[in-house]
Structures are given as structure tokens and as C-alpha cells.
């Protein structure tokens, strides 16, 4: 049996690829107002302990749902698929080649005459690819094409990591 969609239930939201960020944030704040340990500072030790647990659960669910990639991984887990550790899906060759191209460009950026321009281009390409991947996931998930959905999440995970590397490279450039 697949697990219940607890994270969505906690915020009284429908199970979906798309979540309205401001509605999610509003529900999160409302629920934290009720359970946060600071709301129970004068209560008995048992109540305080329970408050810490409930508040932690809310934080975990909120962090997961508000990040599109984490949300996608969670949606797959609800379908019994483990995208976080399952790396057996097949990468398509085009994307692998694209990855190599990007990594080379990033490695050469620091020695280029206009490093910031190189980075800006890479940022834009990464952003565009992320949006396309998100859309691919949305469609695959909607059709319950799990293999395609897993592959999209695999690409998405690469893009997120690459984006962090770009951030780090820009950081070094600015320092």
C-alpha cells in the first residue's frame, strides 16, 4: 500500500504537482501559530514535547512542499518510487552531452576574459532547462508515465546541483 499524502493533508491541500505558494505559506503560518513550542511555553513538559514534535513535522512538510523538486520527489514516493536514491534510470545521451558541455564551460569560465558573462549565460541556460524539465515532469506525472517522470527528476536533480555550482563560482568571482 502506498503511503498517505500526509504533507498535503497537513496543509489541507490537494495532492498536486502545482502548489499555490502563498496559500501554502499562509496555512503554514496559521498552523505554526497553534503548535509552535513558544505558544506552549508555560505548559506541562508533556505538552511542550508534543509541541516540538508537531512543529518539527510542520517544518519538514512545509520545506518539502515549497520546493518544486523536493515536492516532485515526494510525489513519486507517494507512488512507491524512490527518486532520491534510485539512480538506475537511463540517462538520455543528449542530456549527458549537454551536461558535459556545461561543465566544460564552467571549468573554463574563470580563465575567460569575461567570466561574469560566461556565468550569466550558464545561469540563463540552466534556468531555461529547469523550467523545461519541470514541465516534462508535470506532463509525465499527469499521464502516470513513471519512467519518464523519474527521468525528469533525475535531470532536475542534476540541474539543481549545477545551479549550486554556478552560485559557488559566482561567489568566488565576487570575492
Amino acid at each position, binding site marked *: 500500500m502506498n*503511503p*498517505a499524502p*500526509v*504533507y498535503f*493533508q*497537513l496543509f*489541507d491541500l490537494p495532492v498536486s504537482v502545482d502548489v499555490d505558494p502563498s496559500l501554502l*505559506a499562509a496555512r503554514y*503560518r*496559521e*498552523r*505554526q*501559530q*497553534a*503548535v*509552535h*513550542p*513558544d*505558544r*506552549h*511555553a*508555560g*505548559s*506541562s*513538559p*508533556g*505538552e511542550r*514535547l*508534543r*509541541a*516540538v*514534535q*508537531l*512543529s*518539527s*513535522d510542520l*517544518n*519538514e512538510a*512545509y*520545506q518539502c512542499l515549497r520546493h518544486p523538486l523536493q515536492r516532485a520527489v*515526494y510525489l513519486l*514516493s507517494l507512488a512507491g518510487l524512490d527518486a532520491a536514491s534510485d539512480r538506475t534510470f537511463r540517462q538520455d545521451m543528449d542530456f549527458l552531452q549537454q551536461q558535459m558541455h556545461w561543465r566544460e564551460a564552467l571549468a573554463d569560465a574563470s580563465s575567460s576574459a569575461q567570466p561574469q558573462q560566461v556565468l550569466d549565460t550558464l545561469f540563463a541556460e540552466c534556468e531555461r532547462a529547469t523550467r523545461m524539465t519541470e514541465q516534462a515532469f508535470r506532463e509525465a506525472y499527469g499521464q502516470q508515465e513513471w519512467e519518464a517522470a523519474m527521468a525528469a527528476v533525475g535531470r532536475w536533480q542534476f540541474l539543481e546541483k549545477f545551479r549550486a555550482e554556478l*552560485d559557488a563560482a559566482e*561567489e568566488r568571482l*565576487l*570575492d
Partner: protein
Amino acid sequence: MALLQISEPGQTPEPHARKRAIGIDLGTTHSLVATVRDGKPVVLRDRQDRPLLPSAVHYTANGVDAVGYEALAQAAEDPHNTLVSVKRMMGRGLADVRGLGKQLPYRFVDSDGMPLIETAAGPKSPVAVSADILQALAMRARDLLGGAIDGAVITVPAYFDDAQRQATRDAARLADIRVMRLLNEPTAAAVAYGLDRGGEGVVAVFDLGGGTFDVSILRLHKGVFEVLSTGGDSALGGDDFDRAVAEWVLQQAGKHDDLSPVQYRSVLLEARRARECLTDAQQVTVNCPSLGWQGTLSREQFEQLVAGLVDKALRACRRTLRDAALDVAAVDHVVMVGGVTRTPVVRQQVQAFFGKPPLVDIDPDQVVAVGAAIQADVLVGNRSGDDLLLLDVLPLSLGIETMGGLVEKVIHRNTTLPVARSQEFTTYKDGQTAMALHVVQGERELVDDCRSLARFELRGIPPMNAGVARIRVTFQVDADGLLGVTAREETSGVESRVTVKPSYGLSEDQIAGMLSDSYTHAADDKEKRALREQQVESSRLLEALSAALQQDGEALLSAAERQQLETAMQCLRAAIAGDGLPLLRAATDALVALSDPFAARRMDAHIRHALQGQSLDDLTREKQP
């Protein structure tokens, strides 16, 4: 029969029922205490009408001789016995503190890797010195508020790690102060401004204190302060500005490392005076008789000396904004905290960076204590109708040591608190019944580059073949940013016993020892104090439970359950009146155990209310693996 008073939820029943709550800013160079009076936060002043208490303690053979200005006055003459800037040593090992080198002219004694400072009153730990400062502040508050303090909020730099936070809590315990919450300084500052203005939007708090630099990005929405990211530099502050000036003086005077601690201290004091003068003046005469040197320092020269330091702070701002995934233009308000932000070059650079003038209308030395007082007032229950809620984050990632001295991160920095994460481990030998975990805090990959927090030993694992046991270790960080660890073997359901050996903290025994040391008749008073602490704790439990019963007893308990609870409460009341500690502990434990199911039902009712009728049991039991 007396009529029961039932008050509207969220309203204080009677003015006299208001509790005495204080906010304490325990700073590197100075400390403050504030409270909320008639709905307005006020900083409590000393008899000379001074709001600040210098964080300095002077010791003589008789013990504490003076705290604050009177202590500071001894600094030049008796530097070894006048302890300042101990906040920099909180939760630190001897090796870290030695790195502070000649900045602090103290003689350190090694106590198991922990630094103690040799004084005329004997060796003092940074925690004990902080406790003396806290005690002076609490005394001021007691005198001015006319009675015992019900609870305090103490602020810490957002960048403080677990050991530094724990050390702060230990100091409060030594000073006999009930801490309701440790609050991050930048968050406190945002509260001071936010509530004042009913503000909404994104706030950047730029907090340049005596010894540390913090920057936090918060989002304010309908009373909820959500910290998005926090960063900074735990070794950047006004002291570094002074040192830059002092080094310049030494260079100009042609003096180098052969200075005595007394000489160096006097140069530092003069450097500080010069820096403060340059806030208004264009140039200042620097006079160091101990070096036989006098000269002039212009504001322009000074700004060159500290340019690198200001730049370092702005780089941290940029990183922190990036962590919050926000552009500089998204920041609606910039709040300035700490005396050093009065320095014109700091204000100019901050304004240039954020593209808007920073808010400075609350005194930057007082704004943190003001925010802490507001939060203390909420937590003690004086204004529960308020929507004020602070959601803070973990400042530094928590990880565990794995094979080869590498760190595996368990909870990443900037995760909203409280947070719980579980990790599964297994045994590698047949019949293994214990295992050790080394928990570290920091962002680096290698254990040696992170701060060692504690070693946890799990015992009582049922003997099984290697690799069969599934030990689920849960790391829980509470709202104070303090870590707790629990462990459980999943196949048998056996709870493992967790013992903690803090790397740079005080063990329970050491604290008990220090508590008894602070009294002349050690053994007897130690008992009395333990009894008194337990009496206070038990009374608090009774109070909380009575309130809970009055509210929800009818709805959530059967008549028999309620009868049972009330009998146990009666027993505890009798035990509090007596003077037997073991009996009191037993009665307390019994009541806690008996009231736990009631507590769980109450919390569930709370969240069910917030969840609009869903069954909480369904939600938590089926939680994701």
C-alpha cells in the same frame, strides 16, 4: 463555594496577575536588561541612570569585587583579574581561546581541554564569569520590578553554535535565572522594529557588535517573523576595529611584540576611544603615555584601516541574501544593531549596498534587549492574545562523523526550527550492544574543519548478528537551537540509552560542582538549592496543569481520570510543602507520567482546531519513512 474566574482566552485576567519577564542582551562588551511596562518596552537603568552594564567582572581573593563600570575601571591597573570579552570564549576549547593570543591578557589553565582563567579568586570558567554578569542584571531587574523574576529571554548571536548556546544556558542556570528561550540577536532587533511599526515585508538585520557580526534576512507577515537565512562572522566585531587602530598606533610608535599586557590593554582602550570620537569628529588626537607616543588620526585614515573589515561584513550580507534566494532589491528595511554601526563609514557602506538608508531610530545598543523583552512578555503569558511568533533557523549545519574523518550532514543550515531528522545505523560486529556517534557542526567536509559538539554513546542495543540491527537515531533541534539525540532499535523497539560527552561544554557534574562552589557551606546548601529548584519546578507544573484542567479537563478527561490527576496533584502539593527532596521528585515524576496522556490530548485538540477537523492520529502515525 468560591466562584471560579474564567477569563477570555488570550486576555490577562488581572493586572496583578502580570508576571515579571525580562529580556537580557548578554553582549561581548556590554549587557542590558529590559522589560515591558504598561505595554511599552523599557531598558532598565542602574542607580546612575545608565542603561548599559559593561560585560566586565573584577575578582579579588574574596570573590566578585565588582561588575560593570566599577570592574572596568580596574582593567588598566589589574588586567589579569578584570575579565572582559568572555563571550568570545563561551563554549570554546582551550586551543581556540589560545588563538585569541595577546588580545586577551589572561593566564589560562587547562581543565580537560576547557579554558579556565586564573584569577585572584581562583580559576574561573567563561560560563561562571557570564553567570556573574547575568546575576548583576537580574538583581537590577528584581530591585526595579519589585520581586522575583518569573522568566527571561537571553539573546545570543545567530551564529552561535550548539556549544556556545549551551554555555549561555548553563550560565543562566548558575545565576538562577529561568530561561524561557534563547533568542537570536538579529531576530530580537527585528521584533523591536517590527512590532513598533506593524511592518510587513523583508527585513535585513545588520548586527555589528563588539565581537561578532551577524546578518539575518527575515520575512514579516501578520506577526510571524520567519527567518529566511542567517550568516555572518563569529570573529568580526568592534574589537577588530580597535585592534586595527591599535596596530596602527604600534606601527607609528615603532613598538612591536614586546608589550606587556597592561600596555597593550591601554593602547586598545585608547584605540576604542579614538574610534568612538571619529563618529562625530573629523580627526582625533591619540595619546598613549605608556608608549610615550602621541599622534593624530583622521577619519579618512581610520576608514582606510577598517575598509577590509567593512568589506568582509558586506560579503557576508551578499552570501546571506543568496541563501535566502533574494535579490538585494527585495529588501524593504535594513535594521542596524550594535554600537559599531554608529561609525559613519559603516552606515554609508550599508546604505550603498542595500540601496536604502538603514533604520537607526532605536538605539543600536538597546534594540536587541528591547526585542528580547517583548518576546519574554509574550512567552511568560502576559500578552497571549498577540500573534507574535518567531520562526528561527539553524545557523550551522549539523553532521556526524563517518568513515575516514568525513562529515555527513544530517540537518542543513538555515533549516527552520524546531526540526527533527532521523538516520538509520547498523552494527558491524555480531552481538554488538553499543555504538558511538560523533556530532559536529559546520559547513566543511572534514571533521577536523568543523566544530566538535559532542560524542554520543548508545547503549543497550539488543545483541544480534552484524548488520541486522536497525538503530534509528533522531536528532532533534529545539527552538533555542539546542540539539538532543534519541535512539531506538527498530526491529526490537528497544530504546537505547544515550549519554552525551560534550566536547567544549560542562558536564552535569561540573555544573552541580559549580553550583555548590558558589556557596560557602557546600554540601548543605547544595541540597537546599536542589530542593528549592525542584520546588519551583514542581509548582510550575502544578500551575500549568491547573490551568489546563480548568480549560479542557471537562472535555478531554473522564471523571475517573480527572479524580486520579487531582489526587496526584494533592500529593505533590503536600510534597512541596515538606522538605524531602526524594519524595518531592517521586511525586513530581508520578504526576508527569499521569498527566502525559492528557497533555497529548490537549496538543492534539490544538492542532485539530488548526487543521479544521482532520484526525491528527492519521497524520502523524502514517508519517513518511
